[in-house]
């Protein structure tokens, strides 16, 4: 196989993979080609500073698309850099390796972060029609602040379902869990002319897996649509941060153990990746100041039992608002909504 050098060749590569998988699914009930995965990346860097997860980026002819060369993964890692803040990496490498490559890349580079999809963003396809149907949810509660494993109230559930009318009980259980816990993923099906044209799973950390697809253009355009939506949210949040003195407000459905939270952040531990100093202390309220270790931007965080106020001074990256909402929600705070001056943002 020749090296991909143009965007058209990339599309042809994907399309061939989709068609091959449909054929082997029909014949042998399994797929043969690697499933497509996409990672939405939030970037404050230019491409030179960001580098690549593996190898080096080489531009696809006359586009803002790139292919990774020289890292041992031939024709397998592609970058859509047509947006300034939200990039999309497409991978044909296996899921675990892709996850490891992307996570290590982001961890090494200050200024890169994942895209953290809020609940309204994960669920927004339900509101737009176009044949999208929800086919299941992943629910997560990781109790990241628990002091020991025995007392950790961990929950991780995935419930995939078909038409609701035939499995109403499962749908009711999933619906109940959805109201109490953070959603870590949503499975969507797109139906065109009564046939399934895309089956995809969207994760709260900006990952997408394409389980089945018929048409490469349809897949790319819907992933682009989510990237655009997130970039718009970041842009709007930045304007709000710059033009007002109001914080981002995170509302939770479950109460946080403030003592454990304080102990975790004072040492910069945990997935929240915050290194904070407690400056005020009440039984049901704490104030913190410090840095967001993803970008080393300063943050001020005021935390109540089921809410938090996040203030980002200067030109600090506003991506910490959805990150905190997703991580804290999945860690121990349940359903999380983000507001600014009374209006929901990141929707």
């Amino acid at each position, binding site marked *: 196989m020749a090296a991909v050098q143009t965007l058209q060749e990339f599309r042809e590569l994907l399309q061939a993979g989709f068609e091959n998988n449909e054929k082997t699914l029909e014949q042998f009930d399994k797929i043969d080609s690697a499933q497509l995965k996409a990672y939405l990346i939030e970037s404050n860097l230019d491409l030179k500073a960001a580098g690549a997860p593996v190898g080096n980026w080489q531009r696809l002819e006359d586009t803002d698309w790139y292919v990774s060369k020289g890292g041992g993964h031939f024709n397998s890692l592609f970058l859509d850099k047509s947006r300034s803040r939200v990039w999309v990496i497409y991978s044909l490498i296996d899921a675990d390796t892709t996850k490891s490559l992307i996570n290590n890349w982001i961890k090494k580079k200050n200024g890169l972060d994942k895209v953290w999809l809020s609940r309204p963003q994960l669920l927004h396809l339900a509101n737009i029609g176009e044949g999208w149907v929800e086919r299941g949810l992943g629910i997560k509660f990781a109790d990241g602040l628990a002091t020991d494993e025995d007392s950790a109230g961990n929950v991780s559930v995935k419930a995939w379902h078909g038409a609701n009318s035939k499995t109403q009980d499962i749908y009711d259980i999933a619906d109940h869990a959805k109201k109490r816990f953070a959603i870590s993923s949503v499975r969507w099906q797109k139906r065109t002319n009564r046939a399934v044209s895309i089956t995809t799973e969207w994760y709260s950390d900006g990952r997408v897996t394409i389980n089945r697809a018929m048409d490469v253009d349809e897949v790319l355009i819907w992933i682009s649509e989510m990237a655009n939506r997130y970039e718009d949210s970041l842009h709007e949040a930045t304007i709000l941060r710059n033009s007002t003195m109001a*914080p981002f407000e995170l*509302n939770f459905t479950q109460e946080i153990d403030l003592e454990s939270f304080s102990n975790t952040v004072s040492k910069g531990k945990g997935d929240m990746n915050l290194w904070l100093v407690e400056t005020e202390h009440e039984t049901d*309220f704490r104030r913190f100041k410090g840095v967001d270790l993803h970008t*080393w931007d300063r943050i001020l965080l005021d935390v109540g039992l089921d809410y938090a106020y996040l*203030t980002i001074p200067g030109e600090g990256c506003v991506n910490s608002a959805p990150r905190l909402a997703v991580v804290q929600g999945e860690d121990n705070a349940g359903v999380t909504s983000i507001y600014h001056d009374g209006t929901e943002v990141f929707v």
Partner: protein
Amino acid sequence: MDDRITLWRNTLHLFYESKKPPYIGPFKQAGLSKIVIDSPFITTDSKEMHPDIVSSGGDGWIVLEITTKPSSKECQLNFYTQINPRNLGTYGLRQHTKEPDVICARLEPATDGPFCQLILRDRLQFNNEACIKNNSLRKALNEANDRLDLHKLPNISIVIVPEMAGKSKELRRGIFDIVMQLFAKDCEGKTVEQIVKEGLDKINTCISPRDRSSLESSVKTQMDVLVRDHLSEYLMFDETTRCYKVKEHADLHANTKGSIVRELKKWAGGDRSLEEFSEEDPA
């Protein structure tokens, strides 16, 4: 929490709302949302004034003075009544033709003549509300009087103000998160000028060169104490670049972060917790 920052925080959040706990600031309730901080305005007899906050809504506009000083501000507030409303548009504020409602925000009551005074310690209280001409605002203030809990309002991004120059503990508590940024692997250090600029945040462009210079001098003194007496193992002052910086960047272990935080707390608050120091360093 330092008095000046507390007062600024409690005043600014009168323009906003939050969902939890349910809170709507009376200024927002009265339709005053866009604010201009510490920017020049001209009086009708061409005198330049820099009120702390100006805001304008459909039913009127306000000029706010924010002060922790116990002395009367009556004279200054009188000048504010003469600010020319034709300049509101310069800042994108809604235009009016009449005089503003001039209000003084304080933590403790004082004598400010016939002007409305907001007392913003733990609960909102006010004096002389009858002098407020804007009916919506008067109604919103009356509804909030003695009912609005202020002590858990969100922090603000301004962590130092010009009045902190010479007040060591307040300055230290203001800037310690800026110091933490020095430990970022790609941080080449920060000058005193940068630290002051970042601490002032949204009021950075509004302060006089004299105030800035005083703040910079005070920050330099406090940073030298930090480097010499608390974090000498990690931090240094680079004479060439005039930057405070980390001696050698390395991955910070959780325990190292914990010990740096303990030293920062000692520097900013002595042996006691940070919040116990709000009564120190009187103005």
